[in-house]
């Protein structure tokens, strides 16, 4: 029988995480450090606002680009990063940062256009570039560099075909951040180039160093060429609400809204009302969760190092990305055996790109008790292999 599936999709490998999940889901007594979302429930005042929204029968479609009220709150919120956007023309509300990536690629790319991606990175970047007809050009990073991309790494890969550079700090899966000076150097390389910077800052609230998050769009001359992606999932523990946003130059946002309106019409209206409440009065909840993650981050890092596992100190998101090279197994084999022999789920680094080989992603968005149990399983496992 004829294969009806499009060539692009046939050739696209399924997510490495998906495969791993399918196995883990069938097993009993599994302890996990494999999630990519907060363990906290959405703060009650935000949930309460959504309930109220339903009670008032606000269950209709909304404006394609998102409720103006929400877009105004988003513009106001972005000013904390030194960014200034016009709510009416430079902000779009989406169904999450993943949609933003997809829509940005489709809005920008002509066949054959190149997009620079820093690996290891979020699983959806490469497929989104490919589905939009673009060519992903990966820049590997490693632990020796703290998984930071440098201006030189980027410059070396720029070609006349480079349409966009996708940056994602704080980074999923490595937890890496870029310091202001490093980001400034990257901006200096990109400023005069004819290209667009896509900056996925979904973890912007979750940094643990002394300095707060810096957006590349905040440097002179960069806002004009940068699409900033953010959302509610990580900071406000709202993953299931499917609510994100994107800010950028008006012409690019208008192009993205054009795609968004045909595909999604609008983000869920109930989530949008909840989003307004989150931005207006959610800051203390965000800070309380950030503090919790920070404690767990330090706890997990110390425990990993004490059992002799090499791990660089990640200062963002809620992941550690320890090296398992000393055990002589590939990331996949290590994770498979860890799952089957110790009933502990972590994610192989290779799920996030080839340069993730030799690493595993451990999430610390779990209670301390869960982390303790997980690490004790890990300790027993590495003593046996």
């Amino acid at each position: 029988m004829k294969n009806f599936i499009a060539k692009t999709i046939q050739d696209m490998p399924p997510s490495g995480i998906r495969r791993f999940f399918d196995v883990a889901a069938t097993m009993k007594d599994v302890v996990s450090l494999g999630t990519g979302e907060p363990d906290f429930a959405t703060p009650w005042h935000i949930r309460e606002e959504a309930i109220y929204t339903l009670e008032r029968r606000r269950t209709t479609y909304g404006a394609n680009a998102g409720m103006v009220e929400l877009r105004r709150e988003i513009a106001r919120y972005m000013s904390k990063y030194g960014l200034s956007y016009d709510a009416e023309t430079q902000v779009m509300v989406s169904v999450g940062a993943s949609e933003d990536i997809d829509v940005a690629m489709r809005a920008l790319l002509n066949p054959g256009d190149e997009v620079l991606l820093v690996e290891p990175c979020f699983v959806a970047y490469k497929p989104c570039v490919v589905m939009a007809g673009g060519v992903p050009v990966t820049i590997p990073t490693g632990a020796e560099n703290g998984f930071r991309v440098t201006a030189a790494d980027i410059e070396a890969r720029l070609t006349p075909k480079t349409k966009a550079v996708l940056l994602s700090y704080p980074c999923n899966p490595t937890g890496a951040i870029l310091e202001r000076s490093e980001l400034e150097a990257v901006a200096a390389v990109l400023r005069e180039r004819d290209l667009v910077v896509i900056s996925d800052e979904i973890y912007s609230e979750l940094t643990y160093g002394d300095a707060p998050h810096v957006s590349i769009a905040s440097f002179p001359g960069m806002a004009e060429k940068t699409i900033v992606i953010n959302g509610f999932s990580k900071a406000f523990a709202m993953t299931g609400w499917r609510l994100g946003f994107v800010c950028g130059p008006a012409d690019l946002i208008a192009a993205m809204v054009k795609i968004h309106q045909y595909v999604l019409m609008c983000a869920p209206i109930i989530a949008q009302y909840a989003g307004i409440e989150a931005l207006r009065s959610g800051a203390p909840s965000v800070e309380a969760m950030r503090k919790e993650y920070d404690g767990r981050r330090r706890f997990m890092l110390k425990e990993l190092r004490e059992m002799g596992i090499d791990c660089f100190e990640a200062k963002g998101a809620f992941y550690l990305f320890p090296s398992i090279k000393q055990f002589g197994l590939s990331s996949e084999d290590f994770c498979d055996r860890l799952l089957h022999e110790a009933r502990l789920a972590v994610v192989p680094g290779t799920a996030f790109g080839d340069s993730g080989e030799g690493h595993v992603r451990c999430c610390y968005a779990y209670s301390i008790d869960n982390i303790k149990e997980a690490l004790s399983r890990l300790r027993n496992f590495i003593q046996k292999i």
Partner: protein
Amino acid sequence: MRKDILSLLERDAKLTPGEIAVLLGLEETAVREEIEALEREQIICGYGAFVNRDRAGSDDLTALIEVRVTPSRGQGFNHIAERIGRFDEVRAVYLMSGGYDLAVLIEGKSIKDISYFVSDKLSALDSILSTATHFVMKRYKDHGVMFDDADGGDERMIVSP
């Protein structure tokens, strides 16, 4: 540092100074010394467990008694509040703003126990003008902890991107 240590211990008194030090990014000795100081200064007055009494199958009763009193000269409400607080069955005494003066939280084995305390001990004290006793029928949240909390579980997928 004090505030952070207290907020951790208020939720989990079983944390060791070593664990607290890691969670807060401090030195263990510094944490140990700070906790000792907090105990010495009676800022930390004791350690206990949050018990869901309904689930523990306890039949003990709790009542909140609103008490109106005549303040004594030179002592205000302190003298009478301390006297009430000395009874073992009294769990808490607060001076309140509003319609009454002291809120007294009391525990007893039965209604009889509590009635006896109110009529024979409390009302018999000088300067007590009136009392109004309210029995606790069910506890939903105590010490900041929700009992039977629907938020308690982990509904997340084992692995996600």
